[in-house]
């Protein structure tokens, strides 16, 4: 995976989420949305290390993971709009997305809920002798759920091909890490459980990618489960399209500091230092803008889903 394609994938996710934020005010996406703006490098760096047959699970903040794994953009947007062509036909909305063809195995908003599922999927892969790595993304807050420890214990016990990716953005909703956890590294607990550990600055996509490649290679070779902790930062409000620095729950200057190390624009500047690079960046912006415009148009052209179909989804 070239630096440029890592960059392009991040840029695409950034622009898609910005577009969602911009259109959210129109009151047509009638469900909660949790944006990853600022955190794209983790999703992209990890997923770029995966093969199509590998599986990914996410949580409430999963757009970036879905897109980075190759999830269908139009289906995601249609889902957020609650339309029939949505990836869950409108049953789920932003917090429930899935694209089985792309190996995005599902995201749901109960925090921690998909972590044992990822371990179970990895267990199935091992029992069936499939060459498959399973990744699950979750936040620093989610690590406080007991089920995470239960899941890690089982994964290490059975040496399953699972990569736990903790996106430590310092907050759970509006609550800072220090109000929820003592001052010690999250990954040290995973290490004590017997995971192999990697850490990366989550605003450096190449660092995340390098760590992920090693991790995934380890897992394919039958190594112990890997826990990757990435420092990162959410720029917008916990849930919804807006800025929220005025609420005062972040120390002043913190957001600005993280914005200054924006994974997307830093890489854009680097790439743009050559004229060829600058051209590529500009072209990417243009292509992505076009793709987004058509995806929104296609999504909005979807028929509306029918309540009468709901009972049919309940049982297989």
């Amino acid at each position, binding site marked *: 995976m070239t630096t440029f394609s890592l960059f392009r994938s991040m840029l695409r996710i950034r622009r898609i989420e910005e577009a969602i934020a911009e259109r*959210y*005010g129109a*009151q047509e*996406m*009638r*469900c*909660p*949305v949790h944006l990853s703006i600022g955190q794209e490098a983790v999703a992209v760096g990890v997923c770029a290390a995966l093969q199509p047959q590998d599986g990914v699970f996410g949580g409430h903040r999963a757009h970036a993971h879905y897109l980075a794994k190759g999830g269908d953009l139009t289906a995601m947007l249609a889902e957020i*709009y*609650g*339309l029939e062509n*949505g990836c*869950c036909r*409108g*049953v*789920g*909305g932003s*917090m*429930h997305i899935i694209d089985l063809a792309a190996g995005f195995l599902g995201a*749901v*908003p*109960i*925090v*921690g*809920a998909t972590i044992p599922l990822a371990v179970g999927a990895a267990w199935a892969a091992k029992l069936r002798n499939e060459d498959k790595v399973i990744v699950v993304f979750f936040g620093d*807050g*989610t690590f*406080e*759920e*007991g*089920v995470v420890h239960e899941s890690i214990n089982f994964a290490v016990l059975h040496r399953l091909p699972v990569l736990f990716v903790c996106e430590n953005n310092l907050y*759970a*909703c*509006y*609550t800072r890490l220090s*109000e*929820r*956890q003592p001052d010690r590294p999250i990954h040290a607990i995973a290490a004590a459980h017997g995971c192999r550990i990697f850490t990366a600055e989550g605003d450096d996509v190449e660092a995340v990618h390098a760590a992920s490649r090693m991790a995934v290679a380890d897992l394919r070779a039958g190594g112990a489960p890997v826990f990757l902790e990435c420092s990162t930062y959410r720029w917008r409000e916990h*849930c*919804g*399209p807006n800025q929220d620095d005025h*609420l*005062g*729950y972040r120390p002043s200057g913190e957001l600005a500091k993280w914005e200054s190390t924006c994974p997307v624009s830093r890489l854009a500047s680097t790439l743009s230092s050559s004229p060829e690079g600058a051209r590529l960046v500009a072209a990417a912006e243009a292509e992505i803008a076009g793709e987004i415009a058509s995806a929104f148009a296609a999504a909005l052209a979807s028929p*509306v*889903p*029918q*309540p009468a179909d*709901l*009972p049919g*989804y*309940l049982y297989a």
Partner: protein
Amino acid sequence: MPEIERRITQAEAIREALAQAMEEDERVIVIGEGVPDPKGIFGTTTGLQQRFGKARVFDSPLSENGITGICVGAAISGMRPVMVHQRIDFALLAMDQIVNNAAKWHYMFAGQVKVPLVIRVIIGRGWGPGPQHAQSLQALFAHIPGLKVVMPTSGYDAKGMLLAAIRDDNPVIFIEHRWLQDIADHVPEAPYIVPLDQALICRPGQHVTLAAFSYMTVEARLAAEALAEHGIEVEVVDARSVRPLDMSTIVESVRRTGTLIVADTAWKTGGIAGEVIAGVAETAFSALKRPPLRICLPDIPAPTSPHLTRGYYPDALYLARAIAAHLGRSIPDAELADRLFRTTPHDVPQREFRGPF
């Protein structure tokens, strides 16, 4: 009596009850994910930490079962914790501590230890919360001996019942509805108590007893007003408590009206609406002049899309139609529809609601 003019929202009423409880008893502490944050659990806890300090108002790690057990431990050690889940769905993670410990600790030890614990849980919806964030799980708690379970509707009751719950020496599951939080009501400022075991006849009527839970009481009253114009007098009973159910108020009402309809915010099968019907059928069978009827959610999880939630939640119009049909009364549907047509989008509590949750 200038008091009578004082109208505040249910969220404010809850916050006031918390503040007064903390003022009157220093053993009261408040904890939950987001309690001291800028959003303050939909405004119900805003300012409490500033006022009562970090030693009594706590944020919480995302550890529902652990924190519940920790609150049980604090409660049996002389504190009076009030904890809160922003969604009842999260309480599923804590069922072990709620059912195995909180509900039984007093009983298991033959009455030696009290568990004065209040667990606030919020049901209902912003828009599009979907299958995992909009459940109405009161029936799961209603089945458990040792718990008290209440679902106030009015802001007045929310304050009085929360104060009663906090003063109670037993674990109380205090169920709030998201769509009630912004409704204003007359709420006296001075602390007062509303009992945890009494239903309220909030509109008398001789033709049919409509027992409603939580937000359904709001829709029930609207339906009753509309039907009154057509000569159907609905007695609306705000059940208010789920465990214990105030069956005697409901049964007496049914003895007067001969007809029982129950409206609940939850799925029909296995819900508390069925419990109300079973209780009446067992104890006042001869009072029933016709079959009882449940008006509940269909037996499927809540979908997210507004196109799919349309029709999922029974509203006043649905109730009015169902009641008239059940009584065999034909009312020109256009008139009902006209009267009860909801001009606010069906998926938001107030017109001003702008998301995201």
